[in-house]
């Protein structure tokens, strides 16, 4: 499958006006004669929020279009909290939890039972959380809910299924240097956060081998006492569902707050890094730095700046590197923001070996240009149109509204965050753009990583004049049993 547009740095949309346009006067612009009627009235359907006495939060989102019911329990604590010597634990936990099953019903028996109903119960682990989720036909909803609760409260971690999960992760480790894009994103993130950071450290054969069934049990027992968020959506009766959830969760002890994190984020050491991979004919160039977190009041202005830098077809990077120079299919960039820790600044361009230097220079020039080439009214208007006119797609389904509310609850943001965020986007001015570009864009603090075919890269990377080309060794540490 081939697409016109393979990368997605696009954020999204929606004002009802056309912005001023400074194109040559001779163009007729027939599309501007087409009326834009008033949008049909629409109020996103908010879920019902219930806080239990013990601090557990329930969300109920009715949606009767299809005869399904789905649910999830989000549990604070994820891979960033795992012991570095056991890196990979949360990934193993996320797999083994479900595949092991419960004291009453093995994971395999659970598979048979659910699949016959086209129903699912799954578990998984992420960087800051783990989750249990389920879904089924309405008629099976009670039974599937009971099974999901059994798995939540009475899991049985089995050594056999842990071993299966370890084999899965071992295969990922073994294969992690096969794909150029995977190497580039992984190693560039390590440049930003540090190789041993809780956000980037990678599982190794030794660390996953160190994980035991007792570790998984201990992880479960510890995290299950945190502030759980339970979210149900679909075709159910809200009063009956509330009663059922209260029965399952109200008796639990008061939730324990997650201990605060004390991470330090120094950002990358500026410079030029290189990883040689001789079975490719295209370089993957990543230009990275430290980003910010979403609580930063400058985020709306940064989002508009991102749209101008690398948002869509009309962005500076796309226009220059792809449309005008024809140097890349995949090109984009943005100053990133995460919910509760600094994200990454990241620009990337994939270009044939011989044009690595040209394309990298062109991308660097666009990054530097954020502080030297003034933003125009036209760029501001376009970026705001792009973001605000498609903003609607953040809440055009009840499922999306629910998912957003769960995220806001999880990270402690106000329930009306989207509204205030949208209002702030509308207010962004040229002065704001200039200010945030100067404050956050520092080309001298960025690291450049090139993954590519060294002998084919001519002119060589020294032409970039970014100091010495520093090789990164990505050799996979092998255990004694695998050669």
């Amino acid at each position, binding site marked *: 499958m081939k697409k016109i547009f393979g990368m997605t740095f696009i954020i999204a949309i929606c004002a009802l006006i056309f912005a001023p346009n400074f194109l040559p006067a001779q163009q007729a612009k027939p599309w501007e004669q087409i009326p834009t009627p008033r949008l049909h009235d629409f109020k996103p359907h908010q879920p019902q929020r219930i806080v239990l006495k013990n601090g557990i939060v329930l969300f109920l989102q009715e949606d009767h279009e299809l005869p399904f019911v789905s649910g999830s329990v989000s549990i604070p604590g994820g891979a960033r909290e795992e012991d570095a010597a056991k890196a990979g634990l949360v990934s193993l936990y996320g797999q083994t939890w479900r595949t092991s099953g419960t004291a009453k019903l093995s994971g395999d028996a659970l598979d*048979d039972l659910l699949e016959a109903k086209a129903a699912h119960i799954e578990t998984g682990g992420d960087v800051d959380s783990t989750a249990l989720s389920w879904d089924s036909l309405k008629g099976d909803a009670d039974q599937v809910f009971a099974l999901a609760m059994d798995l939540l409260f009475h899991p049985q971690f089995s050594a056999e299924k842990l071993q299966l999960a370890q084999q899965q992760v071992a295969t990922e480790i073994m294969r992690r240097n096969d794909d150029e894009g995977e190497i580039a994103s992984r190693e560039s993130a390590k440049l930003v956060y540090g190789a041993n950071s809780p956000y980037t450290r990678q599982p190794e054969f030794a660390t996953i081998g160190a994980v035991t069934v007792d570790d998984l049990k201990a992880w479960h027992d510890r995290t299950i006492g945190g502030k759980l968020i339970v979210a149900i959506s679909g075709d159910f009766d809200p009063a009956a569902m509330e009663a059922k959830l209260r029965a399952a969760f109200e008796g639990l002890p008061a939730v324990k707050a997650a201990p605060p994190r004390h991470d330090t984020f120094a950002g990358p050491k500026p410079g030029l890094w290189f990883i040689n991979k001789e079975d490719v004919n295209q370089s993957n160039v990543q230009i990275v730095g430290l980003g910010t977190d979403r609580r930063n009041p400058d985020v709306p202005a940064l989002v508009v700046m991102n749209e101008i830098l690398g948002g869509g077809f009309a962005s500076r990077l796309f226009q220059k590197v792809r449309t005008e120079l024809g140097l890349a299919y995949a090109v984009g960039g943005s100053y990133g923001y995460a919910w509760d820790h600094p994200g990454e600044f990241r620009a990337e361009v994939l270009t*044939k070996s011989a044009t690595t230097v040209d394309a990298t220079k062109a991308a660097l020039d666009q990054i530097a240009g954020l502080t030297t080439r003034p933003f125009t009214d036209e760029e501001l208007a376009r970026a705001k149109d792009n973001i605000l006119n498609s903003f609607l*797609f953040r809440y055009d389904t009840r499922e999306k509204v629910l998912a957003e509310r769960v995220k806001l609850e999880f990270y402690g943001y106000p329930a009306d965050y989207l509204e205030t965020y949208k209002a702030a986007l509308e207010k962004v001015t040229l002065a704001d753009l200039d200010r945030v570009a100067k404050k956050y864009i520092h080309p001298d603090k960025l690291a450049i990583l090139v993954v590519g075919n060294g002998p084919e890269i*001519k002119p060589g990377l020294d032409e970039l004049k970014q100091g010495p080309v520093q090789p990164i060794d990505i050799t996979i540490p092998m255990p004694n049993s695998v050669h």
Partner: protein
Amino acid sequence: MQRKTSPWIYKGVMALMLAAIALAGARAQDLKSFEQRITTKVLLNGLTLVICERPEAPVFSYSTFIDAGDVNDPSGESGLAHMFEHLAFKGTSQIGTKDYAAEKIALAKVEAANDAYEAEYLKAVGRDEAKLAELKKAFKEAEAEAHKYVIPNQFTDVAERNGAEGLNAETQLDETIYFWSMPENRLELWAWLESGRLADVVPREFYKERDVVIEERRMRTDSNPIGRLVEQFLATAYVAHNYGRSAIGWPSEVSQINATEAMDFHKKYYVGANIVVAVVGDVKASEMLPMLEKYFSNIPAGPKPEEMTTVEPKQFAEKTVAIREQTQPFYLEGYHRPDYRSPDAEVYDAITDIMSNGRVSRLYRSLVRDQQIAAEAEGFSPFPGDKYPGLFAFYAVPLPGHTPAEMRDAIHKEIDKLKTADVTDEELAMYKTRTRADLLRGLADNQGLANSLAQYQTRYGDWRELFRQLDKVDKVTKADIRRVANEVFVPSNRTESWIETEAAPAAAAQKDGGAQ
């Protein structure tokens, strides 16, 4: 008809477990309810509009389905349909240009300059390098001249500024699909943009875009071990049919496609009779149809392009492809099967489901769970397309220390079981339940529904087949599965392919990206 696009993206079978599913019996999900909400209209130019009202939110999605893809690329021009798809984002005589009359003349000069360059470049005897350089320079100058009239990316800019979400297109072997979603009050603007670019494409910035497409090839195929393997696998499995040809284009061909060829492709295949446009969302068909008809009538009428005569001859020689390189091992094999119109199409779907769907599937339980030799193992079909006879393929990702040969043997053992014993009642029932549920689940998404309606309208001449296929699913029997397995999964009908890991050369010199 459901095609898995990238079945071997190595992220594990578990990740495939999507969201929920369920059985019918509900209000808004049966054929009758859809008949009330769907309006179909064939315009005088032959183009079919399918409009489905789903006013859940003030938005709509559309899918334009062109019944032509890279399988239709003329000989020597592989990658042409995809190249044209990129052109369809460059605007028309009315959008993307400062002065179309002047631009048209400049574009003709670009084409003439390219022809002159190519004629010299392709000379088998007596190519004059100095002349070639001169012609290249003249071409670049003509290109720069034409560029003066361009307003870059104006077509997509207008769409994005008006809230287009998920704006993209896909070229597959069988078809080309254009799609996005928008706020419902932009329906007329969308109709203007979409009908305009289907009817009135201008070969603007064609040669720059060709470079972009070649970068896409480098990313998807050349620089990706699985991409390289699949290209060789298909080229080996097919001897006559275009399914064996690189879909994104062989480098020598895609790098020499010219704008004239792209416009010829457009003229032949982008005619009303070859296009279905489906719109799903907060749209009132009775109010909007006259407006849509006005815009989409601009697309030229034209005969439905003639069907391809080539039929892949019956395979009688077992074939193998072995790649030895410094990447991790992988195994992929395929057997020729009939196209989507075959009365056995649902039998193949049943085999796919029973062999591959989730942790209950036979390949997972055998290769992953019990033997513990693979991280992932699945069958998928049809591949690489469904309009013409494709392949039933199987792949497996070996665990560290295991080999492609072990994958092959273990897969063959599971295939043999299909041939010698009936599947269980539970397996067959599970296939039927899950298929019904999957269909239902897809109805809650504007974009997915638009794609399905356009696809079924094209392939069967009636979108209702999307629902009627369930009757055929219900009729699949255990005997059907055994019969088909015995017919198709035979060595003489097979192409095996694998990647074997080659040891790294000892004491490799540190390469540093050309720096000294």
